[in-house]
């Protein structure tokens, strides 16, 4: 009963946020520029939550997430621009190709551990970027321009919700528990019948799939893709990683909060242009000193606990 209530409440709140944005947009309170930033927030939420599945829940330290993002961005743009494919199928194709690449890269790379895996994924991301840089069909070094603006706030918002719900459901299922077991103790997990390679690769390619959809949303949001480190290379990967660590590994709500805050914050800091690159790192360092495990430190913020707080009831939230 309580479960149903909180699902309903979540749905109502999500709908209210959407209509709120829409009303403020038509009322002129939010400028198109603001709505753009909100779309970017949704795209980053998808990136951070999907990276959390790999790094946070499965414990495989990947820093090549931008590679999957790039695959989705470029493939979907190629499909809509060159082949006139409608956007939603193009977005799904972008996700699928990223997922398949995740499978192909994950199978050999996930045999590596810790630092070695991090370096291998970093290398993978750069390889993708160099391939794009040398592919004339997608603009090569000049960049890919003339991409139609198909990404609306509504679509980005919906995709983000689907991603969050899917990953939340995944981690609370037996599949996600197997990933947690691999993260916590691979030997114990194996002795319980968990095929650790299978679940590492599964989490990796599922995360890659969602990163690919985020890429598709991004290229049809910016309408121009440049094969630079900051847009699809290691700097982008590091950006996503910073959001993840700030929100807390293993916390989905933490990832959402961090993605939104770290997307909006630089825009606020635009006014202090010359101090921006000082304030941003100082904030990060402060958070890491006072909350070393991230803002939410592996815990989840939930409506259930909020409801309980209101009722004054201190019962535990059960699992099912």
């Amino acid at each position, binding site marked *: 009963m309580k479960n149903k209530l909180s699902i309903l409440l979540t749905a109502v709140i999500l709908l209210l946020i959407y209509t709120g944005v829409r009303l403020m947009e038509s009322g002129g309170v939010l400028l198109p520029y603001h709505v753009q930033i909100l779309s970017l927030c949704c795209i980053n939420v998808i990136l951070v939550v999907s990276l959390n599945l790999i790094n946070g829940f499965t414990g495989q330290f990947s820093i090549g997430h931008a590679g999957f993002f790039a695959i989705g961005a470029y493939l979907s743009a190629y499909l809509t621009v060159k082949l006139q494919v409608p956007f939603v199928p193009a977005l799904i194709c972008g996700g699928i190709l990223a997922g398949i690449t995740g499978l192909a890269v994950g199978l050999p790379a996930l045999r590596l551990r810790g630092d070695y895996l991090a370096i291998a994924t970093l290398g993978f991301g750069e390889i993708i970027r160099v391939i794009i840089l040398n592919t004339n069909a997608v603009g090569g070094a000049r960049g890919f321009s003339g991409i139609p603006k198909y990404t609306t706030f509504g679509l980005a918002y919906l995709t983000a919700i689907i991603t969050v719900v899917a990953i939340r*459901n995944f981690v609370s299922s037996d599949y996600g*528990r197997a990933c*947690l077991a691999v993260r916590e103790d691979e030997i*114990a997990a194996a002795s*319980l019948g968990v*095929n650790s390679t299978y679940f590492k690769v599964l989490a990796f390619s599922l995360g890659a799939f969602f990163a690919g959809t985020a890429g598709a949303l991004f290229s049809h949001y910016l309408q121009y893709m440049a094969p630079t480190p900051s847009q699809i290379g290691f700097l982008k990967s590091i950006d996503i990683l910073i959001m993840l660590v700030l929100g807390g590994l293993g916390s989905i709500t933490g990832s959402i909060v961090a993605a939104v805050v770290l997307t909006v914050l630089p825009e606020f800091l635009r006014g202090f242009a010359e101090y921006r690159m000082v304030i941003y790192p100082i904030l990060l360092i402060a958070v890491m000193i006072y909350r070393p495990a991230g803002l939410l430190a592996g815990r989840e913020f939930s409506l259930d606990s909020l409801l309980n707080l209101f009722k004054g009831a201190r019962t535990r939230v059960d*699992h099912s």
Partner: protein
Amino acid sequence: MSTTAELMVNNLSVQFGGLKAVDQVSFALQPQSLAGLIGPNGAGKTTVFNALTGLCPVTGGEISFNSERLTNEPPHAIARCGIARTFQNIRLFKNLTVLDNLRIAYHKNRQYSLLCGLFRSPRFRREEAQITAKAKDVLALVDLADKADHLAGSLPYGEQRRVEIARALMLDPKLLLLDEPAAGMNPQETTALLELIRRLRDELQITILLIEHDMKLVMNLCEKLFVLDYGHLIATGDPKSIQSNRRVVEAYLGGNLA
């Protein structure tokens, strides 16, 4: 089928570089028997368990379980065949709750598909409810029903050992391997453990092989003992004959066997 042994170990050898940790060891376990593997520190007992569960490479010999060849199969496949174990240096998922530790171990029996999980289908909900119910039942079996929501790492040592046994039981094993289950327990806990192990064998009708240094527990509990020394199996028999076995007494340096 005839009354063949459930577990057959034939000339098992495990070599680490130049060290023969286990050397040509052969033994067999009958279904629903309760046996002990003993020997001085470093004799190779844990290595035998690791070989049986696929956690270290077997360099010679054969292992078969219910006529299935298990030699050098990966650990997750061996677990699926019905062999579960605990570890000498407890390997619980310390940052997860006791209940989640047990729910993870249901893994091999899970039926629902990935899509059912992603969409939380009715089938998913039904099976998850069953998993939780089963985990609670198994916890009750080891007397830890009230600890379900505690973090596994926060429990006292003796309770962690029981959680690890419960987690292994979630696999519905036919053979349970316990590596020093009484280590770190006080005398009362050890007595309770002895009764628990006996009850598990009788009620669940499983085969149990345990490694233990507490000779009182071993002699009271086990029907059959295998004694290892420097990787060699030096004696096999019932507790009485082992106690009076000259080679065994020598191996323990006339130690605390009586």
